[in-house]
């Protein structure tokens, strides 16, 4: 599990993608795993056992459980592992960039600029 997810995160670096974990271990056990497996992605800590609030909220009964969400937070794939997970992410990333409006962040800005498409840049704030 870890090597594949590590490679996915590395491959998607600079793209509008995030892997978010929900971890059901004790904090000591998570910390050990993060270090040993060189895990860089962020996880919610779900209270230290499999009966945590987030697992209960999502009705999770088996681990790992995977949901893949698009950029609007809509569930698009469930239970995809390995190459299927990569394909799902690639598919949804394609839909992000197919849109006319891209929200660049400091991480993704350079990627969008290098996409060799005409861009109208709008620096804005919500006030």
């Amino acid at each position, binding site marked *: *599990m870890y090597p594949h*997810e590590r490679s*996915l995160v590395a491959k998607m670096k600079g*793209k*509008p*993608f*995030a*892997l*978010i974990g*929900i*971890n*059901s*271990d004790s*904090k000591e*056990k*998570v910390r*050990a*795993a*993060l270090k040993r497996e060189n895990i860089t*992605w*962020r*996880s*919610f*800590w*779900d209270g230290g056992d*499999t009966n945590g*609030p*987030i*697992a209960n*909220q*999502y*009705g999770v009964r088996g*681990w*790992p*459980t*995977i*949901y*893949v*969400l*698009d*950029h*609007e*937070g*809509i*569930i*698009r*794939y*469930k239970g995809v592992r390995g190459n299927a*997970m990569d394909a799902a992410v690639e598919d*949804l990333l394609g*839909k*992000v960039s*197919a*849109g*006319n*409006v*891209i*929200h660049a*962040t400091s991480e993704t800005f350079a990627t969008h600029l290098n996409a060799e498409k005409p861009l109208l840049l709008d620096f804005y704030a*919500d006030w």
Partner: protein
Amino acid sequence: MPKNVWNAYFPLTFACHVLAFRVNYRRPVLKLLKGSVSMKKTIFPSLISLLILVGCNNEEPAATPQTGQDGATTEAPGDDTPGDDPQPANDVTVGFEIGNQAPEITGEDIDGVAFKLSDYRGKVVVLDFWGDW
């Protein structure tokens, strides 16, 4: 009367109503006082004021959907400011099936820093329930 008068279009609608009041009310009253009323002269300003009022009333419904219902679904993809709009789009069901809006998750990371799933709106997200066993 619209339910909520105090929207962004208030100055515009207010100006319309003031204009309508001046044309509709003040001018015919002045003419009545002067005693120079004829059908042609009273009906014409009334028609103008009616048109102005119709114009004003058209302005208001046009304003409401722009500010209210135009959520993330009808706008261009990604046009959803992260953190600004934690509510899911109105016409998408919140749930756990494919096509549903994923329910909001709020919690803390391993270091006790609070964050939430909607912080990542605008990005493709893999949610991975995991444990080291």
